[in-house]
């Protein structure tokens, strides 16, 4: 199968999202689609699979002009789209999910559970997976759910599979399994369109790459012929030099010290972070980093351990207590825990410090306006004004709003959980610079990150966790990815 | 951008102005009086008016009970026949809605109010308001605890209760085991019918249980089912209204029993079941008379005739023997 898209254009109202995109893919290759958020990747894929109608341009499938009426139509013709947020039913079994709307029926018109189970198992075994088809979809790991999605694609005999950031929530191990599967299917002449933000994956799994920027396809390369710098340059439209601004820390007193913290999914964790320092927390997904910090901040329960803030033992029983002690927490889940997306930037930014704006019980609106405007400027949030809703901003700017909220509440200790996840390359750099500015002002930062280069470049020291246990602390200066990885996978 | 902003600001201003106007109207209307009543004074002399010049406001307690639907029809037919204008409101059995309804009728400057109160005590405040507005009030079926009422037209519920008890004794003999299904607790009909019935029944009948079914057919069905479980040997049932009697009859029929049932009201549904033999009897209220009398009281009032304070319309026991003629008299069917 060969798909060729030429000069695709698409507008939403006056907003021209695609301005002439060329893209092609054929069976037996993995073609990566790269670009910042908002570059138009999803729109392009939605047009291909019939979810949206193109305004101009041609789509040729095996040299015939083709337009699919719906996603279902596209599926019937062998094109399957595995979305980043998988549309499955957590309470239903794996087999029921796989055969939803395609149930095999007995002569009586009843569902033939036996036959479905047998077929489902066969598809999964072919993929080298041993998932129990009777378990609830919601009980599977994200990686296993992805396997089920791929199995579903094979069930409909897909010739081209589109995957949107498939590894975003996978562990190292699961990623390896996924890649193995993709390679096998590729040799069985299945084609892939692979959307990713992870640069290194280009050279691990992809044959070609097309870079998109601002609704245009910039370039298409054979991955073996292109360097990372070139891709980054194409994505942002300029050389952004080194991502990482580098660290020049001036350490002060111990800002926060934790002794023998234990709780659900972590055990006996001790560490300290100094004023002006960035302490990295590395480890695999599920190593207990996030859980440790949530319990420390008072969101979840701490079963034992002591916490010292500025040398004094402190009980942090709830976020409100922690905030009073000068701690801020940028959570991993920005949409659900970091922002109230339907409310204004100002409301979001002022929330943790709202009590300080009271004047005889009434909020001093002018002071609040000033406060929000100042922080928006200082953290270079790109927004027209402080009254737009937080949800209308891009990922990177949303992250800056969350940061602004904590900077504004006067945090002396900042916990950043995956601060650059889902953030554009350009905004990433700005966030790193902000972190440097904060530590220059003696703020202590604890940074959880799954991005190894980020941990190595932006931390002063790195704590590594593995399965809820503390494996050791590494001085970031001169440390290598291999060193961290070894500890993170349980090696000594 | 500025324009739209300004526009939205202006809209806000208009809104504020509108609310201020609304308020200002209120202040003007009040004439600066402070106290319990908006106006006062009364006169005894009534200006004569013919029925065709009268606008009568009617507030009915509920139109989900067939008896009151019939009452409404009788009132409006009788008034229209005489050329009066009628405005009818239904209170949905909600005391506070009824007060609102009557207030609105007063606003419409009706010449007279015929009120069928949901509750005797709660209606009093608006009756007083009608008094202040010098609008004569006739109460139907239930009385008003206070406030001046020209006349109260109602069936004699206490006498009806007594009649039901005596009829059961005559039919089943003294000390027969019977069950009493009561109406909405506290409603005047419940109190009066119960009072009349119990004054004789408590002594001369063996009332094994008294339970409420809220004047509701479906609830009476369940209540009766339960009673038949607990007291399978009862010989009779007194239901304080006909809706309950119909429910009880269903339960008795389903249980395949022979039990004497007497209801109260004389609604079409129950009269039909009397003809079929599923309900034995009912205490028939002469709704046609009640309705016509209440309107006639208004006419008499505006002719400066003397109107009796209380008009107790007689009730009678309806059985298979006289059901056909009663149906003809009350419903013209």
């Amino acid at each position, binding site marked *: 199968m060969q798909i060729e898209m030429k000069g695709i254009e698409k507008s939403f109202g*006056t907003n021209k999202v695609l301005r002439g995109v060329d893209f092609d893919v054929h069976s037996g290759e993995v073609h990566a689609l790269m670009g910042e958020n908002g570059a138009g990747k999803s729109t392009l894929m939605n047009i291909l699979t019939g979810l949206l109608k193109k305004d101009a341009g041609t789509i040729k499938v095996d040299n015939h002009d083709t337009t699919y009426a719906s996603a279902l139509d596209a599926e019937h013709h062998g094109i399957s789209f595995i979305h980043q947020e998988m549309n499955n039913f957590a309470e239903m079994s794996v087999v029921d999910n796989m055969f939803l709307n395609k149930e095999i029926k007995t002569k009586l018109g009843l569902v033939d559970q036996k036959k479905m189970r047998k077929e489902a198992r066969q598809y999964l075994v072919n993929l080298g997976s041993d998932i129990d088809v009777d378990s609830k979809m919601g009980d599977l790991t994200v990686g296993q759910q992805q396997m089920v999605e791929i199995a579903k694609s094979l069930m409909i005999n897909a010739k081209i599979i589109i995957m949107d950031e498939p590894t975003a929530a996978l562990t190292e191990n699961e990623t390896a399994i996924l890649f193995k599967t993709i390679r096998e299917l590729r040799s069985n002449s299945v084609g892939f369109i692979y959307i990713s933000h992870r640069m290194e994956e280009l050279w691990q799994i992809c044959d070609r790459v097309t870079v998109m920027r601002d609704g245009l396809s910039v370039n298409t390369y054979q991955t073996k012929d292109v360097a990372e710098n070139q891709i980054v340059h194409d994505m942002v439209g300029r050389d952004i030099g080194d991502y990482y601004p580098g660290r020049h820390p001036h350490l002060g007193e111990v800002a926060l010290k934790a002794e023998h913290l234990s709780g659900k999914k972590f055990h006996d964790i001790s560490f300290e972070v100094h004023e002006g320092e960035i302490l990295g927390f590395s480890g695999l997904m599920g190593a207990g980093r996030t859980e440790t910090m949530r319990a420390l*901040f008072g*969101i979840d329960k701490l079963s034992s351990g002591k916490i010292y803030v500025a040398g004094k033992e402190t009980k942090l029983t*709830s*976020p409100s207590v*922690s*905030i*009073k002690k000068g701690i801020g927490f940028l*959570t991993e889940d920005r949409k*659900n*825990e970091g*922002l109230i*997306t339907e*409310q204004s930037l100002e*409301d979001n930014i002022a*929330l*943790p410090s*709202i009590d300080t704006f*009271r004047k005889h019980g*009434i*909020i001093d609106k002018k002071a609040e306006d000033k406060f929000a405007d100042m922080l928006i400027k200082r953290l270079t949030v790109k927004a027209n004004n402080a*009254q737009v809703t937080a949800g209308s901003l891009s990922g990177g700017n949303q992250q800056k709003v969350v940061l602004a909220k904590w900077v504004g*509440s006067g945090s002396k200790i900042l916990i950043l959980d995956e601060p650059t996840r889902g953030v554009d390359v350009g905004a990433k750099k700005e966030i790193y610079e902000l972190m440097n500015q904060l530590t220059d002002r003696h703020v202590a930062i604890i940074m959880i990150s799954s991005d190894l280069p980020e941990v190595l470049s932006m931390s002063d020291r790195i704590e590594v966790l593995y399965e809820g246990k503390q494996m050791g602390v590494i001085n970031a200066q001169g440390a290598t990815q291999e060193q961290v990885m070894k500890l993170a996978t349980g090696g000594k | *951008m500025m324009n*739209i*902003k300004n526009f*939205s600001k202006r*809209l806000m201003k208009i*809104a504020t102005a*509108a609310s201020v106007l609304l308020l200002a109207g*209120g*202040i003007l*209307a*009040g*004439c*600066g009086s*402070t*106290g*319990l*009543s*908006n106006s006062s004074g009364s006169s005894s002399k009534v200006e004569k008016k013919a029925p065709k010049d009268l606008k009568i406001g009617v507030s009915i307690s509920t139109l989900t009970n067939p008896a009151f639907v019939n009452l409404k029809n009788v009132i409006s037919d009788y008034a229209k026949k005489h050329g009066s204008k009628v405005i*009818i409101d*239904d209170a949905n059995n*909600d*005391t*506070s809605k009824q*007060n*609102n309804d009557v207030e609105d009728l007063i*606003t419409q*400057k009706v010449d007279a109010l015929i009120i069928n109160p949901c*509750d005797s*005590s*709660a209606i*009093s*405040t608006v009756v007083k308001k009608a008094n202040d507005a010098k609008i004569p009030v006739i109460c139907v079926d239930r009385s008003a*605890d*206070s406030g001046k009422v020209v006349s109260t037209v109602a069936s004699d519920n206490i006498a009806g209760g007594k009649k039901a008890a005596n009829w059961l004794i005559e039919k089943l003999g003294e000390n027969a085991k019977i069950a009493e299904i009561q109406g*909405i*607790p*506290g409603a005047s009909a419940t109190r009066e019918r119960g009072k009349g019935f119990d004054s004789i029944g408590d002594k001369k009948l063996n009332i094994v249980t008294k339970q409420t079914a809220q004047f509701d057919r479906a609830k009476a069905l369940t209540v009766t089912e339960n009673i038949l479980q607990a007291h399978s040997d009862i010989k009779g049932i007194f239901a304080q209204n006909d809706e309950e009697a119909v429910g009880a009859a269903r339960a008795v029929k389903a249980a395949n029993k022979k039990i004497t049932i007497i209801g109260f009201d004389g609604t079409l549904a129950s009269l039909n079941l009397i003809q079929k033999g599923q309900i034995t009897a009912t205490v028939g209220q002469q709704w046609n008379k009640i309705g016509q009398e209440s309107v006639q009281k208004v006419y008499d009032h505006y002719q400066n005739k003397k109107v009796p304070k209380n008009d107790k319309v007689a009730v009678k026991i309806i059985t298979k023997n006289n059901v056909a003629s009663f149906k003809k008299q009350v419903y013209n069917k």
Partner: protein
Amino acid sequence: MDKAKTTKKKFDFTKYMALVALIILVIIITVLNPQFIAPNNLLNLLRQASVNALIAFGMTFVILTSGIDLSVGSILAFTGAISASLILGGTPAWLAALIGLAIGALLGALNGVFITWGKVTPFIATLATMTIWRGATYVFTGGNPITGGKMNTSFFFQFVGQGYLFGIPFPVIITLIAFIICYVLLHKTAFGRKTFALGGNEKAAFVAGVKTKKLLIIIYTISGLFAALAGFILTSRLGSAQPDAGMSYEMDAIASTVIGGASLMGGKGRMAGTLVGALLIASLSNGMNLLGINSFYQQIVKGVVILIAVMIDSQTQKNRE
């Protein structure tokens, strides 16, 4: 192009939806029956709106947190009965009123406790307490209305529901004061901001230091308190505490709040909108009474108005996205 987008957001037409509807309704009814706009009728209308408006004010806080309070009608009946019987028993009316309010607040707080510490969803928790307090009212009153005696002679008691101050019905004045307090509380204080935050995203509010449990308990307390206030006024208006008072009042209160632009998903709503919603509902029944429309049809019209209001609201919402 970006600019146009943000301007649209500033001018939020949904904010004025209910007000426009009210104005149109007032014009229509007035044209059909000019009596409607007569000062006396407007005062009637305001007084008729007051009980529902008071409950709806409390309900607005609750709905903003994506909760619901079904127990308001029962709390209204229960506290009304208690105040009435206290007055009959010789307690000064003002003290009886205060005790009623305190009990209302307490029952509201109890709802909050079940919801936060008991982890029962608001719908279920208040459905249960709705049934409990209705039953308690029947037990307490024996099913009979409480009336007469000192309730007829106490000036304070009579004045609250039936009195006039400067020619304005006293319940209307109470409602106006309550509105101003609620407006300031919701839109001008940290408490209000936290309420919005909690409704917009409970987890994010908690992480940002909002004491969500405490806040929820306070909000349900407010709802209970306003139900009790409405209960005392209604008891005074009727001169009698009815055991079945306030039945299904929660529905009118929810409707007022929703017509006023609040979202049952939480985080969205305005006190002024709720006031307009309550006025709209009162104008509907008052106006249709004046026009002599059968009460059965009135219910249909009311339902249709609620549907249209919410549909327009969600449609404009969609367009914004």
